[in-house]
C-alpha cells in the first residue's frame, strides 16, 4: 500500500504563474519524505496540494490509494502542522487537540478526552489541557500542533516548515523528537523545509525541488554523495564546483577542462567528449598535506587523483571539524573540511590537497 502518490501534479495560479510544473512521487506508507528547496521552488504549493488547500490544474493526488484530487481539505484524511502552528487562540489546548475528533462527529466525549490525554502524553505535555496557546512556549506550541494533527488518526502527516520559527537549539531537539514520534506512530509524512540540514538529518528520502519540479529524489546519503544535477550539489551541503567542457572519456573516467584547471572525474552519467559538465567535489573528500617544494602546476592528475596546490587564506572552526579556504595557484577558491585535532594548518600555510577520482562527481552543467 502506498501512502501518498502524486502523478503529474501541476499548479498554475490565476495570474499565469506556474508554481508546480508536473511532479511525480510515490511515497510509501510510513515513509518520511522531505521536500527541500529554496523559497519559491513550489514545495509548499505541493504540500498544500496534498492537503487540498490548492487545487492542481493538472495531475492526480492519491492518499492511501484513494484519489482525492477533487476532494476539499475537510474530506481528506491528512493532519497538518503549520509554520506558525495556527493553534486556535480562543480555545484551550484540550479543545485544540479535540477539534478534529469533534469535527468528525464519530467519537464519544470520553473517547475524545482519553485520546487528547494520550496525545498530550505522546508529545510529553501531560496535564496541559486547560492552558491556552498563549501560555505555552514556542516548543510547547509546536508539540500541541503535532498532537492536534495526529489526534484524529490521519492517513498522512503534513509538516509545513514547522521548525522554522524555533531557535537553533530547540530546533535540533525537535528534529529528533519529531522523528521519534513519527516512527512511533508509523505515519506517512511529508515534511517541507528550506533547511538542507533538516532534510538530511530527518528523512527516509529527500526530494530536492527547484523551479517547480523535482531535481532529484533519493535517500539523504545518496542525494548528498551522488548529486544528479549541479543545483542539487550546490543546494545540499557545501560543494566545490568546477564548470567546464569534457575533453575525453576513457575507462569511465572523464577528463574535464575547467578553464585553467584540468580535472579527472568518475563518469557514471552519459556525458561524452565536447559536452559541458561540472565537476563536484565535497570539501571533506580532500586530503591535506604540506606543499611539495617545487611549487608545480595548478592542478595535476596523477595516480587516480586530482592534486591542487595553494595557500590557506581563511580557517574557521566548526566544532568537530575545521573548514579551510584555499586559494589555488590558478587563483581559484577551494573549500576543504578536515577533522579537528588532526594535522591542523593555519592561515598562510602553503598546502597541497588531493582528492581521489572516485570522489569527484561529474554532473550536467
Amino acid at each position: 500500500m502506498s501512502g501518498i502518490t502524486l502523478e503529474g501534479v501541476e499548479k498554475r495560479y490565476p495570474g499565469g504563474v506556474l508554481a508546480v510544473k508536473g511532479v511525480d512521487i510515490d511515497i510509501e506508507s510510513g515513509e518520511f519524505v522531505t521536500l527541500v528547496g529554496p523559497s519559491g521552488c513550489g514545495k509548499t504549493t505541493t504540500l498544500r496540494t496534498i492537503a487540498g488547500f490548492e487545487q492542481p490544474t493538472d495531475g492526480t493526488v492519491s492518499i492511501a490509494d484513494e484519489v482525492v484530487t477533487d476532494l476539499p481539505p475537510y474530506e481528506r484524511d491528512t493532519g497538518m502542522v503549520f509554520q506558525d502552528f495556527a493553534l486556535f487562540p480562543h480555545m484551550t489546548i484540550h479543545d485544540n487537540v479535540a477539534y478534529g475528533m469533534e469535527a468528525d462527529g464519530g467519537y464519544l466525549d470520553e473517547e475524545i478526552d482519553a485520546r487528547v490525554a494520550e496525545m498530550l502524553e505522546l508529545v510529553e505535555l501531560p496535564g496541559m489541557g486547560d492552558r491556552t496557546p498563549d501560555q505555552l512556549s514556542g516548543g510547547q506550541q509546536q508539540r500541541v500542533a503535532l498532537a492536534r494533527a495526529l489526534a484524529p488518526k490521519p492517513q498522512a502527516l503534513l509538516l509545513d516548515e514547522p521548525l522554522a520559527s524555533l531557535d537553533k537549539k530547540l530546533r535540533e531537539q525537535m528534529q529528533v523528537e519529531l522523528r521519534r514520534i513519527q516512527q512511533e506512530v508509523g505515519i506517512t509524512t511529508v515534511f517541507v523545509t528550506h533547511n538542507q540540514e533538516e532534510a538530511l538529518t530527518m528523512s527516509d528520502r529527500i526530494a530536492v525541488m527547484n523551479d517547480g519540479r523535482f531535481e532529484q529524489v533519493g535517500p539523504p546519503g545518496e542525494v548528498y554523495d551522488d548529486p544528479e544535477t549541479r543545483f542539487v550539489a550546490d543546494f545540499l551541503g557545501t560543494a566545490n564546483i568546477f564548470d567546464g567542457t569534457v575533453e575525453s572519456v576513457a575507462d569511465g573516467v572523464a577528463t574535464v577542462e575547467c578553464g585553467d584547471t584540468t580535472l579527472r572525474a568518475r563518469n557514471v552519467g552519459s556525458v561524452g567528449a565536447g559536452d559541458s559538465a561540472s565537476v563536484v567535489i565535497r570539501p571533506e573528500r580532500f586530503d591535506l598535506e604540506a606543499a611539495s617544494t617545487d611549487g608545480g602546476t595548478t592542478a595535476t592528475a596523477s595516480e587516480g587523483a586530482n592534486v591542487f596546490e595553494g595557500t590557506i587564506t581563511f580557517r574557521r572552526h566548526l566544532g568537530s571539524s575545521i573548514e579551510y579556504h584555499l586559494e589555488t595557484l590558478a587563483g581559484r577558491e577551494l573549500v576543504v573540511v578536515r577533522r579537528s585535532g588532526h594535522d591542523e594548518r593555519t592561515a598562510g600555510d602553503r598546502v597541497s590537497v588531493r582528492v581521489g577520482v572516485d570522489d569527484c562527481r561529474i554532473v550536467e552543467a
Partner: protein
Amino acid sequence: MAAETPPSEADADDPGSGSETVNSGRAGLKANAKWYVVSYPLFWLGLIFLVPLAMLFAFSFYVNIPGGRYEMGLTLENYARFLTSELYLGQLWLTIEIALVTAAISLLLGYPIAYYLARMERAWLRSLLLITIISSLWVTYVIRAYAWQVILASGGLLSSVGVSVGLLSEPQAFYPGYWGLIVGMVYVFLPFMILTLYSSIRNIDGELLEASKNLGAGPVRTFRRVTLPLSKNGIMSGSALVFILALGSYVLPRLLGSSAERTLPVLIEQQIMSEANYPFGAAMSIGLIVVVVAFLWVMVRFTNLTTGSLGGSETATPDGESPSSAAQSTGVGGRLRSGFGSLAAAVGLTRAVAGVGSAVNAAVTVVNAETRERVLSIASRAYAAAVMVFIAAPLAIIIAVSFTPEQFLTFPPGGFSMQWYVEFFTDPDWVLALLNSLGIAGAVAVLSTTIGGSLAFALDRFDYRWGTIFGTFGVLPILVPPVIVGVAFLVFFLELGLAGSRLSIIVAHGIFYAPFPFILISQGLREIDRTYEEAAMNLGASPGRTIRTITYPLLRANVVSGALFAFILSLNEYIIAWLLSLFLVDTIPIQIFNSLRYGYTPTIAAASVVFIVLTVVVMSSIDRMSGGIWE
C-alpha cells in the same frame, strides 16, 4: 540543467470566471455561493439606497406646484433658481466657507493634542482621554449644540462669568451668529480630526524619531522633517473628513447660527419641511452632492498638490480669510470684529496657553536642552488640558444643569434636585420618544450589521469582477450628507406610502450606518490569520463548521462593535429621522430639538444626561470587548 518543457496552457482558467465548481481554495466554499452571499447587501446598498438617490435626481427636474404638490416633468427651472439667485449662491459659498474654517481651526487645535496623545507614555491616561474624546463624539449634535446654547446664550455661562469678572458690563449673547456657530462646529468635529491625526501619528515608528534625534536634529527639526511629512495622510484625511461632515451638517447651523447662517442643508430642510417644495429641495440636494463629489475628486486626483496647499493654508487661513470673505458679503467686517471678541472668549484660554507655550519655547532655546524639554512638556500638558476642557466641559455643564432645582436654566445651578429626571421618566411623550429611539436603534443595529457584515464577508472570500465597486457601495452611504439621505428616502417612502413610520427610519439608518460594521468586519476578516481556517478544515471541519467555530469567534468583537456603533449612531441621529418622521414619530433627538423651540426647560438637560449615559455605557462596552479598538 534539463531544458524546461513549456507547461500546457490549455487549462489555465480564470477562477473568477465561475467555470470552476470546486472549492475556492480559501475557505473551501462553493463558487456559486458567492452570488447568494453578495445579493443581500447589494439589495440594500445597490437597490434600496441608489433608487431614492436616483429619484432625488429625477425630482430635481420636476415642476413644483405651490401647495406641496409637484408634477413629473423635465425642467431646469429649479437649477436656474438655485444658480441665478444671489441669496442661494451666497449661502452655498457660506456653507463651504464655514466647512473650510471649521476644518482649518480643527486642524490647528487638533494636531498638537493628537501628537501629545500619540506620544504619551501613561497608557491609562491616554485611554481615559481617548474615551472622553470618543464618547463626546457619539452624543447627538442636538445635545451638543444645546450645550453651547447654554454656554453662549445671554445670561448663559460665558456672559455670566464675563459680567462677574468685569469683562462685560451687561449680559451679552454670543449666539446665534457666525462665530458662535464656528465654535460649535469646531467643538463637534474636532474629535474626528484628533482621532484621525492620532492614529496617523501613532503609526509613525518611534525609532524614526530616535534616529532623527541621534542624527543631531532637535525637536523642532525632527517634527518638521520627520513627523509632519509622515503624518501628511492623517492631515489630509482628517481635514477632508471634517470638511465633508461640516458641509453636510444641519443641526449646528440651525441651532447656533442666526438667520444669516442658513447653510445649504438648513435651506434644503426648509424647502422640504416648511415650503414642501420637493423639486427645488431636490435640486439643492444635487448641488450639495456635486460639491462633495467635486471635493472628493480633487482630493483623490490632486492628492500631492493639495498636500502642499493644505499644509500652507493651515497657517494662512485665519489671516487669508478676510479678503476672500470681504468680497462675498458686506457684513463681514463687523462680523469679524465682533466675532474675534467672542471667539477669543471661547478659545482664548487655549490660544493663550499655546501662545505662552511657544513664546516660552522660543525664549528658552538658548537655555540648556533639559530645561527646554521640561518647559515644552509643561506647555504641551497645559495645552492638552485646555483642549480637553473644551471637549469635555459642555457635556459636564449639561450634567450640572440637569440637577438644578430651579424652574429655568441657570448656571451655576443653585442646589441639587432630581426633579427633572422624575419629570423625564413620568412624561409619556419623553418615555415614548425614548422607547422609539431604542427600538429603532436596535433594529438598525441588526440591519446595518447584516448588510455590512455580509458584504465584508463576500468581498473577503470571493473574487468579483466588480469587487471594487461593491466595496465602494459599502462606504458610499456615509459619504452622502445626511440631509440628502433624509430627503432622498423621504421622496422614496412617500411614493411607497411608508413615510412617517418607524420602518422608514430603520431602513434609512440601517443603510446609512452600514459602512461602520462593513469597515470593522472587513478589517477583522483581513486580520484573521487564514491558517486558522485551514487548520480547522484540515482537521475535518466543513466550511459551515469552520465559520461557526473558528471565524466567527475570532471576529465576534468586530461584529458586536459594528452593531453597537450602528446602534449608538442611530440613537443619536436627528436630521434623517426628522425628515422621515413627517411629525408622526418622535425620537429623543427630535423631542429635544422640538423642546428647544419653546425654551430651555431643564428636562432637556435630564433627557440629554440619560442619553449621554446610555452612549457612554455602550461605548465603554465596545472598548472593553474589542480590547482597545482605538489603537
